[in-house]
C-alpha cells in the first residue's frame, strides 16, 4: 500500500472508529502535522454523515438538559454571553479548556525564540537523558514550520527558530504549553531575542507526546493573566521520536 493509500485508509479507519487508543493518538498527531491526512479525515466524516441523515430522533427530555446544565454549573461553566469577545482579551472565563480562545487568530508575522524550559516534578523524572523526550515542530497559520522545540529529560529545552519574524516595539514573545486541560495553558517565559538556545527547566511535569506548545505575541512584559491574550503565532503538538 502506497503512502497515499495508507493515509486514506487510516483516515477512514479513524472516522469509522476502528482505532485503538494508541493508533488514535498517532492519528491525532498526524492531523497536527499532515494537512493531507487531515483533509482525508474531513472528507470521510462528511461523506459518512449520510448514513445517519434519516435517523428518527429520540426524545431529548428536559430532564436531560437539566442534567447537562447541572454538570456545567458544577464544573464552573458560566454564562458570559454579556461579554463581547474581542481579539485582545478573551472574554470567556467559563470552560477552563477554552483558555486558548483567541489563539486561532494567528498572525503571519511572527517571531520565534524561546527562553524557557520544561522540568519535572518527581524524582523519578530527574535522570538526565541524552535524547529529547519530545520534539515539537511549531508551524504558523499557513502550516509552515517556523521553529523546533526539543524538550529533554534533564530539565532543559532546546529551542531552534527556523526563521525570523517581525516583533513590534513594546512587544514580546511568550511561549506556552498545555499539559493538562484542567490547568490550561501555562506560560513558559517571555523573550525578544531570536536565536537558538538551551534553557534550564521549571517545575512542570515531564513533557509528553501530543502536548500542545505555542508562541503568542504579547505586549511587554507579557500576558498578565496567565493565558495568551495576543494572537498565537505558531503552534504544534509534541511527538516522541523513536529510540
Amino acid at each position, binding site marked *: 500500500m502506497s503512502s497515499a493509500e495508507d493515509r*486514506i*485508509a487510516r*483516515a*477512514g*479507519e*479513524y472516522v*469509522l*472508529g476502528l482505532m485503538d487508543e494508541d493508533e*488514535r*493518538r498517532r492519528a*491525532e498527531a498526524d*492531523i*497536527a502535522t499532515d*494537512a493531507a491526512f487531515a483533509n482525508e*479525515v474531513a472528507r*470521510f*466524516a*462528511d*461523506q459518512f*454523515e*449520510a448514513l*445517519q441523515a434519516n*435517523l*428518527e*430522533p*429520540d*426524545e431529548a427530555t428536559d430532564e*436531560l438538559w437539566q442534567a*447537562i446544565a447541572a*454538570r*456545567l454549573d458544577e464544573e464552573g*461553566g458560566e*454564562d*458570559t*454571553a454579556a461579554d463581547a*469577545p474581542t481579539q485582545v482579551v478573551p*472574554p470567556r472565563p*467559563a470552560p477552563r*479548556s*477554552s483558555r486558548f*480562545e483567541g489563539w*486561532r487568530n494567528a498572525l503571519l508575522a511572527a517571531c520565534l525564540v524561546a527562553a524557557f524550559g520544561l522540568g519535572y*516534578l518527581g524524582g523519578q523524572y530527574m535522570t538526565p537523558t541524552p535524547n529529547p523526550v519530545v520534539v515539537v515542530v511549531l508551524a504558523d497559520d499557513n502550516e509552515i514550520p517556523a521553529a523546533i522545540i526539543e524538550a529533554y529529560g534533564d530539565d532543559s529545552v532546546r529551542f531552534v527558530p527556523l526563521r525570523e519574524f517581525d516583533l513590534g516595539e513594546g512587544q514580546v514573545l511568550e511561549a506556552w504549553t*498545555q*499539559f*493538562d*486541560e*484542567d*490547568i490550561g495553558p*501555562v*506560560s513558559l517565559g517571555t523573550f525578544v531575542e531570536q536565536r537558538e538556545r538551551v534553557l534550564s527547566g521549571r517545575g*512542570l*511535569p*515531564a513533557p509528553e507526546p*501530543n502536548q*500542545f506548545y505555542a508562541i503568542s505575541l504579547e505586549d511587554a512584559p507579557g500576558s498578565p493573566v496567565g493565558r495568551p491574550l495576543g494572537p*498565537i503565532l505558531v503552534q*504544534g*503538538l*509534541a511527538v516522541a521520536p523513536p529510540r
Partner: protein
Amino acid sequence: MEGYTRGAGSGCSNPKLFFVSAHLKPTGKSISIEFISALHRPQPLTISQMPSLERLLEQVADGERAALERLFRLEAGRMLAIARRIVRRKDLAEEVIQDVFVTIWRKASQFDAGRGSARAWLSIIVRHRALNVIRDGARMDHHDPESLAELGDREADATSAYEALPDDMSLRQCLGDLDPQRRSCIILAYVVGYSHGEIAARLKAPVGTVKAWIRRGLLALRECMS
C-alpha cells in the same frame, strides 16, 4: 508555575484541530474524542451566511449558555439516536449526550466552519464518545437476555441505514459497488460501532482479513467518490 501536579496529559488542544476531550463524570478520566476541524480556512463564512448550527456553535464558543440549549433542542434527539444505535441502551445514550454537550460547551471554539459541517462535527463527537462507552467493558453487561436481544438488532440497523440512502447519492452508489463483505464491514463499523473483532466474528473471517477488507474498501470508496 511551581507545584503543578502531573496532569492527565491529554494535551490535545491545538485550536486547529478537533481533538476534543471529554471528561467522564464518574471517574474524572480524560477521554479523547477526537475529530478534526480546519487546518486551513481559506474563505471563512461570515456570520450572516452561516447555517444555524454553525451560528449556534459560534455563540456557544462565545459562552452563551442559551445557544447551547438551543443546540440541544435542535440536535440532541438526533444525537441520542446516533448514540443509541451504538450503545443500545437509552440510559447509556443519555449519558453519552451529557458528556457530549459538556464537551461542546468547552470545545465549540475549535469548530471551524471552513471545513466540514457542524452536523458532521457533532455526529463524530457523539460516535466517538459512544464507542468509548461500549468499549469500556465495565459499562455494559452483554450477558443478560435483554441486552443480547438488543445487540441482535444492531445488524438490522446497519442494513437499514445503508438501504435508506437515496439511490442517486454517491455514497450509496459507491458502497453498492463494493464487494458485499467489504460493504458490510464498513457499515457495521460506522453505523453500530462494531470493532474489527466483532466484524470478524460476525463474518466468520480472520481479523487480519477484515482489516484488509476495510482498508481496501475505504480506498475504493475514496476513489469512487472523488
